[in-house]
């Protein structure tokens, strides 16, 4: 019995020890598995996880370069930067955005408009690291947030440079503005392979010079290697590559002249472009009304945007660059020059003007009732005789007109250094074939040439083209490409890279013909349609008035300003250069729906020329001068 018990005991112990042994083997197997896993992670996959840990640890923080300034020719600042604190949220690191903003609102003021703007930014700037919920924090607000910062992972204060346009609406179309980078900008940046340089950049030039000179203004982004914790907050800086500031743009523009021109427009809509004929440098570039570019920098609020966008005055349209207008009678000097050059007229040749030109069944009416009588070329320009040009147009034919006048840049982009230029329309048989689809519309009718002769019909040009043509004529046929930037200045080295005047073409013209036309244009301002506006001018000048129909008049209908709604009134135009012998400035003015060119546009030109040539300044809108009967 005892033996059996003992044996049983032994057996029991044996079985127990067997199970302990099995458990031990299991423990060894489990530990081997762990060891294998650790060897796999720490040896086989070491490089991978090492990189991962470094990526975790080290954050490459881009340092934004200062954007270059934009200055006028004498150094007046048109676009600058200022530093301010912003409160920024990294949407990816915040779990409950609404709640976070609510809590932030308890510390710093966050208005409803800030919230809507932030939401808009979230949609527009997808993938942005951090977005501002509030800009321009006060020192007190900065301190308040700093105390509470620990409560807000993914929210931080940043010192940012803001773009500011100190002159507000002045030259707004020309300078343009920067705005938040959106999806389309990102695509463009990627296409240009500039993604690296735009890391950390939130803004990009959207219009005007800010857009066209983006690559000069932006600068080169610097980098800082920062050790960050899991909340993304910097712990210490490991290395730093400083950014290189963007280059300054120094313009050919004379901001005082710009100011004089803009003030001369008063409440009128329109455009003015003034060019230095010997270089193509733009001296003034006006599109009225303007807008405040500062509104766009941090995202425009929807209310202001609606106001700008729905306004009948269309302030966002750059009229000087993208507005196209029939040149009206300002077309005549080029027609006359074409006649001389192509041998279709001599200066002495006269016509009889009965007050109309009969073409088949159609009677093309002259502005002056009863006509100008006997008219030679000089008088045709000075008095702006329509009948002369109806006939001339008919004699030249549309393709001759298009070929000759096209040389002055009409109906072609000038290549100015801002984007958004309109092409305009220089009518020709070929143009009409391309423009229309139906065969009967594609055909050119001889009657259509007659309207083109006085700058009406299909003619449509930008004020910039008109100014460039005037400058080319003033410069005896040598055409410079218009440009806004005089030189680009490297801030660090002080090195200046000038934008060299580029001769676009030299039109082969006989000197005596050019001289004749110039003399006739001089006559306009001394004894013709521009004489009243240029009365007692202390310099010689050339000019030509123009009035462009907005709505076509019926054949026998007399245009009566009082009976036409304001928006359907004629546009007033004036082209000029001065002084007559050695032109320093050439310009084109369009005043929308202002009626006669002599009355509304010429006085603006007078103020601009007075200021530019004499330094005279009258700080009020140009007075309308009473119209003569033979004005147009």
């Amino acid at each position, binding site marked *: 019995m005892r033996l059996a018990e003992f044996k049983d005991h032994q057996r*029991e112990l044996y*079985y*127990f*020890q067997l*199970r*302990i042994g099995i*458990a*031990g083997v299991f*423990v*060894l197997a*489990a*530990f081997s*598995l*762990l*060891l294998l*896993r*650790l*060897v796999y*992670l*720490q*040896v086989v*996959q*070491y490089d*991978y*996880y*090492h990189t*991962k*840990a*470094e990526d*975790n*640890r080290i954050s490459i923080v881009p340092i934004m370069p200062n954007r270059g300034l934009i200055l006028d020719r004498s150094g007046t600042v048109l676009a600058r930067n200022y530093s301010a604190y912003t409160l920024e949220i990294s949407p990816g690191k915040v779990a409950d955005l609404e709640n976070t903003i609510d809590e932030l609102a308890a510390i710093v003021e966050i208005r409803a408009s800030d919230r809507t703007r932030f939401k808009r930014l979230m949609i527009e700037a997808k993938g942005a690291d951090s977005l501002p919920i509030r800009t321009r924090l006060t020192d007190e607000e900065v301190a308040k947030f700093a105390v509470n910062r620990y409560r807000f992972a993914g929210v931080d204060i940043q010192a940012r440079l803001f773009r500011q346009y100190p002159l507000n609406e002045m030259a707004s179309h020309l300078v343009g503005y920067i705005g938040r980078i959106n999806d389309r900008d990102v695509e463009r940046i990627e296409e240009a392979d500039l993604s690296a340089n735009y890391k950390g950049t939130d803004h990009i030039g959207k219009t005007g010079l800010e857009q066209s000179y983006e690559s000069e203004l932006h600068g080169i982004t610097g980098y800082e290697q920062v*050790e*960050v*914790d*899991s*909340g993304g907050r910097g*712990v210490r800086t490991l290395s730093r590559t400083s950014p290189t500031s963007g280059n300054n743009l120094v313009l050919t523009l004379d901001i005082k002249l710009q100011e004089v021109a803009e003030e001369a427009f008063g409440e009128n809509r329109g455009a003015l472009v003034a060019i230095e004929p010997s270089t193509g440098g733009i001296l003034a570039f006006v599109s009225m009304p303007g807008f405040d570019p500062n509104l766009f920098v941090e995202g425009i609020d929807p209310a202001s945007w609606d106001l700008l966008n729905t306004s009948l005055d269309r302030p966002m349209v750059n009229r000087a660059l993208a507005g196209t207008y029939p040149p009206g009678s300002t077309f005549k000097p080029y027609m006359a020059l074409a006649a001389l050059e192509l041998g279709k007229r001599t200066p002495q040749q006269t016509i009889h003007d009965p007050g109309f030109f009969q073409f088949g069944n159609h009677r093309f009416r002259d502005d002056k009732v009863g006509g100008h009588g006997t008219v030679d070329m000089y008088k045709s320009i000075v008095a702006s005789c329509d009948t002369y040009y109806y006939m001339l147009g008919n004699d030249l034919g549309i393709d001759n007109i298009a070929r000759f006048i096209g040389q002055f840049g009409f109906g072609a982009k000038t290549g100015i250094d801002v984007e958004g230029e309109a092409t305009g329309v220089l009518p020709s048989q070929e143009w009409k074939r391309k423009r229309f689809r139906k065969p009967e519309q594609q055909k050119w009718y001889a009657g259509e040439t007659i309207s083109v002769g006085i700058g009406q019909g299909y003619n449509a040009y930008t004020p910039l083209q008109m100014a460039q043509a005037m400058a080319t004529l003033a410069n005896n046929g040598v055409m410079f490409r218009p440009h806004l930037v005089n030189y680009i200045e490297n801030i660090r080295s002080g090195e200046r890279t000038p934008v060299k005047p580029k001769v676009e073409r030299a039109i082969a013209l006989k000197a005596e013909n050019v001289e004749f036309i110039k003399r006739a244009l001089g006559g306009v301002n001394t004894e013709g349609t521009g004489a009243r506006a240029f009365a007692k001018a202390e310099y010689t000048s050339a000019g030509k008035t123009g009035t462009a129909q907005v709505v076509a008049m019926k054949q026998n209908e007399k245009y009566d300003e009082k009976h036409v709604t304001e928006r359907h009134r004629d546009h007033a135009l004036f082209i000029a250069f001065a002084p007559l012998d050695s032109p320093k400035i050439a310009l084109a003015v369009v005043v929308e729906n202002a009626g006669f060119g002599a009355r509304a546009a010429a006085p603006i030109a007078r103020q601009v020329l007075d200021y530019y040539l004499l330094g005279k300044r009258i700080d009020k809108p140009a007075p309308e001068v009473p119209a003569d009967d033979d004005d147009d």
Partner: protein
Amino acid sequence: MTMIRTLWLRFTDKIDTPLFALAFALLLLGIITLASAAHETPARVTGQAANILVALGMMWAVAQFQPQTLMRFALPAYALGLALLIAVALFGEVVNGARRWLNIGVTRIQPSEIMKIAMPLMLAWYFHKHEATLRLRDYLVASLLLAVPVLLIARQPDLGTALLVTAAGFYVIFLAGLAWKVLIGLALAGCASLPFLWSLMHDYQRRRILTLLDPTSDPLGAGYHIIQSIIAVGSGGLVGKGWLKGTQAHLEFIPERSTDFIFAVYSEEFGLIGNCLLLLLYLLLIARGLTIAANAPTFFARLLAGAVTLTFFTYVFVNMGMVSGILPVVGVPLPLVSFGGTALVTLFLGIGILMSIHRHRKLVQT
């Protein structure tokens, strides 16, 4: 002099030197790692030192008992644990969405922790009582004794503790000689009931398992912790980044880095070599425990020592497996290394039991 020597010998009489030396080495590694993991809250290090002193005191006290005395605690401890678990289910406080704590006026206690010791004690006692006449019925009773508290704990929910209590109970049943064919049958049945278990799980528990299978499926949510933890381990490499130099740890990428995920900190700073040392210490400690079990004089002592040792192993394996990404995330600390007093006390009670069994083996041999 001799008196002091005698006192010291008396004092250390019941302390098993190899077991103590191994546990002490692990505590040392733990404190060193904690000093790095909790470098911003040094109070944790001193707090842990205090925990260690308390736990060592408990170990010493338990080691003084004879196993027979321990046996007497079995039923009361189990009954108390069960009663408290029921009380938790009825009146427990909810913290972080789990009902684990019971407020007993002066302090809050977590009764599930008691079961980690009470469960093997109870089952070992039960099997010991029926040693001569063990039948399948006894295993069924034991399984029931195991299942009731486990279900109560799992319902809290506290998956980690439920797992450890289950393991402790299962080891007793296994060592008590449950037939292999029953074991295999249970294993198969277990596999078959997986879908059913899945349906019982809480959402967050399911997510943890899904996350384990593919951590990248939720890199910012549940997967984030495990991804960062694995990065910490992997980036430690062969020799580690050095003490106090773990970037994942110090830049706060590792979650729970002084408690459940302290192994990630250790791995990052001491590398594979450090891990080998750690695994070796654990292995030796477990080997010592199993040896004690194999040489224990009574059925009760054997079962208890074996189960306590294997439970200790379960801690190690589950924790390291979780941190290195081969097991789902369950709240199991790395034994003797993780910060936390409760776990430390439980573990040293276990070590104390082992010492008691080892030192009293000759006294009861009949």
